[in-house]
């Protein structure tokens, strides 16, 4: 009876109350503290590193050249670049990304520079500057910026975080270097047993000073060896064999020249400056664009300026001995196209540019035709990116970047997949190029081109159109997803004697789908 009176709430209710109370308290505490749970910080890996190989600024041309190398263990996307304009300025406060000469190797992305691979890559595709890669980027610095004293680089990476692609600044890997500083000295004793390491040190083990001497390539040679007279001959640089007395130095090149295999000082082909031994230098080491890989003007071209600008001259290549230039192409005496081997052809390579000798001396179907429009995408002086737009406009092209009108990066030249020569034009991501041609005074209008696609899926197609005027309905000539190059030739009925006809190459696909075209011709007679 007494026990019964002391009874409170039932055990069951007590437990329920306790559990409810605990759950409520836990919910409150969790809600309150959950934001304090540390999350993973967006941070670059420790092995990210870049190295400034060369940094030069020409105050007369206002051009800054930056050569950087990915010296680390991870791919990177690009970099932030800031500069100072005096030695007294401690912190770089000039953002140079705005002055990037955008091309195939780099484009601007916000206030950073994104390094592209040299072919068909896009922003956001990933980190394309891989360990060991080296890139040179040009910046056109306006006069208002004044002098550039030093440059600071902060590498950047695209990183996956919480299933999102985020853009990370790798501040731990930032580097800063004054203008003009070139190549940090790295001791090199590879293959040497004596002599200097190039950085003021000595290579071990060294020679026995009483019986040996160290030759020009770091090898110990016996004092009793037999030398020859004038081992260098006409060589002015490099090393030459001096009888049994090892190698002797024939001198070094100065003024930025380099020593070739013949021991002569020659220019650095591809740096854009015409130096000793060069007849042109268009800033690249590719042949087929008028200036060869050894920086010699190619047959059929004329080059001027530095970097050289190369043009097709009104003549046939030197190996087309029986042909002469006229009406825009090379013909034999009967006015017909003819190959170097003497066989008549009815199609082929306009203006004899690119390809091998066997097929290069023929120009256009039928005799008596005149080129009203021609583009093989080889003649552009700066043919690796955005400057292409202005140049292509001069040649009658309108480029419409439908998805990236600000960056205009969906149409560019491509040097890996081409019909002939070095370059073709690449169109991607719902973008197009449109050619504007007058056929006034001409009949029998023919439209020729080579084309192919890459990575198209489903209903995606590369579509080619033409129309009279600038507002009429487009006539589709074909829609293709062929992945092989095919030369196409269309007779444009109704295009005769018109003040304006337009041709259009439209890539009906996404940003990883590509349409490529080359050797585009409009002829009439």
């Amino acid at each position, binding site marked *: 009876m007494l026990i019964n*009176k002391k*009874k*409170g*709430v*039932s055990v069951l*209710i007590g437990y329920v*109350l306790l559990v*409810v*109370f605990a759950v*409520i*308290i836990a*919910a*409150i505490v969790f*809600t*309150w503290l*959950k*934001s*304090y*749970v*540390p*999350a993973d*910080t*967006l*941070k670059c890996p420790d092995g990210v590193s870049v190295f400034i190989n060369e940094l030069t600024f020409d105050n007369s041309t206002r051009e800054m050249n930056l050569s950087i190398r990915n010296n680390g263990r991870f791919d990177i996307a690009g970099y*932030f670049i*800031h500069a100072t304009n005096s030695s*007294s*300025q*401690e*912190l*770089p*406060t*000039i*953002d140079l*990304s705005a002055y990037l000469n955008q091309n195939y190797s780099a484009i601007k992305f*916000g*206030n*950073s520079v994104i390094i592209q691979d040299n072919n068909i890559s896009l922003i956001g595709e990933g980190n394309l500057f891989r360990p060991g890669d080296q890139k040179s980027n040009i910046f056109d610095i306006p006069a208002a910026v004044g002098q550039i004293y030093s440059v600071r680089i*902060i590498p*950047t990476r695209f990183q996956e975080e*919480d299933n999102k692609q*985020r*853009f*990370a*600044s790798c*501040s731990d890997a*930032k580097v800063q270097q004054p203008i003009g500083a070139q190549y940090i000295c790295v001791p090199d004793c590879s293959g040497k047993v004596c002599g200097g390491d190039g950085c003021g040190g000595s290579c071990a083990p060294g020679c026995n000073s009483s019986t040996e001497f160290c030759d020009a390539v770091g090898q110990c040679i016996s004092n009793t060896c037999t030398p020859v007279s004038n081992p260098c001959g006409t060589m002015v640089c490099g090393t030459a064999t001096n009888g049994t007395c090892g190698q002797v130095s024939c001198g070094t090149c100065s003024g930025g020249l380099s020593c070739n295999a013949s021991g002569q000082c020659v220019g650095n082909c591809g740096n854009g400056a015409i130096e000793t031994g060069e007849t042109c230098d268009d800033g690249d080491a590719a042949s087929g664009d008028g200036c060869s890989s050894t920086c010699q003007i190619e047959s059929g071209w004329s080059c001027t300026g530095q970097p050289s600008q190369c043009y097709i001259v009104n003549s046939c290549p030197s190996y087309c001995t029986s042909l002469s230039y006229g009406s825009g192409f090379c013909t034999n005496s009967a006015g017909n196209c003819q190959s170097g081997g003497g066989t008549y052809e009815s199609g082929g390579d306009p203006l004899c540019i690119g390809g091998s000798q066997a097929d290069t001396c023929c120009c256009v179907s039928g005799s008596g035709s005149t080129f009203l429009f021609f583009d093989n995408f080889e003649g552009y002086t700066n043919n690796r990116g955005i400057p292409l737009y202005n140049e292509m406009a001069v040649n009658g092209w309108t480029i419409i970047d439908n998805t990236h009108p600000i960056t205009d990066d969906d149409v560019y030249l491509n040097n890996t997949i081409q019909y002939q020569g070095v370059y073709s034009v690449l169109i991607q991501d719902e973008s197009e190029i449109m050619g504007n041609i007058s056929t006034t005074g001409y009949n029998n209008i023919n439209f020729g081109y080579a084309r192919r696609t890459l990575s198209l899926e489903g209903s995606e197609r590369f579509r080619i159109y033409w129309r009279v005027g600038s507002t009429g309905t487009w006539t589709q000539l074909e829609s293709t997803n062929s992945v092989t190059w095919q030369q196409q030739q269309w007779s444009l009925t109704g295009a005769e004697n018109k003040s304006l006809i337009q041709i259009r190459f439209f890539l009906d696909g996404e940003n990883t789908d590509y349409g490529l075209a080359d050797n585009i011709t409009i002829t009439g007679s």
Partner: protein
Amino acid sequence: MDRKEKRRKAVSPVIATTLLVAMVVVVGLIVFLWFKGFTQEAITKFGGTNIELICKDVEFDSSYSGGILSISDIGNVPIYSFKVKVEKPGSHETFDIENIVLGWPDTGLNQGGIFSGDISSSASGAEKIVLIPVLRGISDSGARTHACDEQYGKEIIL
């Protein structure tokens, strides 16, 4: 005896249980609402991380020369503004950077962003300037700014 026992009797178990449950609910509600008030004040950034934790990830470089204050955001956290603490002999004063310098960007400094401005009039006679980052985050009541602790700031000795 029986009368005495009867007087000592309290409320019935049913009533006691009801009262207890009601009290638990009321107290729980009060405590929840009280703490909920605290949680409303929490400012978060980058998907729910408390902005106080974000402050330690802020990275910036700064310099002051000839009256010109230069700042560069080298990290991955956008810096919305700065508190500029100007320490003079015997006193100190704290300004919002946008109030003492022209041209501070409305959106602050993003990744890789740089800024230079003249603060000579505010920093005249100062021995030390402390730059304290101000971040912008989200709370239940919308976007809000948060000044980081001074430990996350940077001192510039003049």
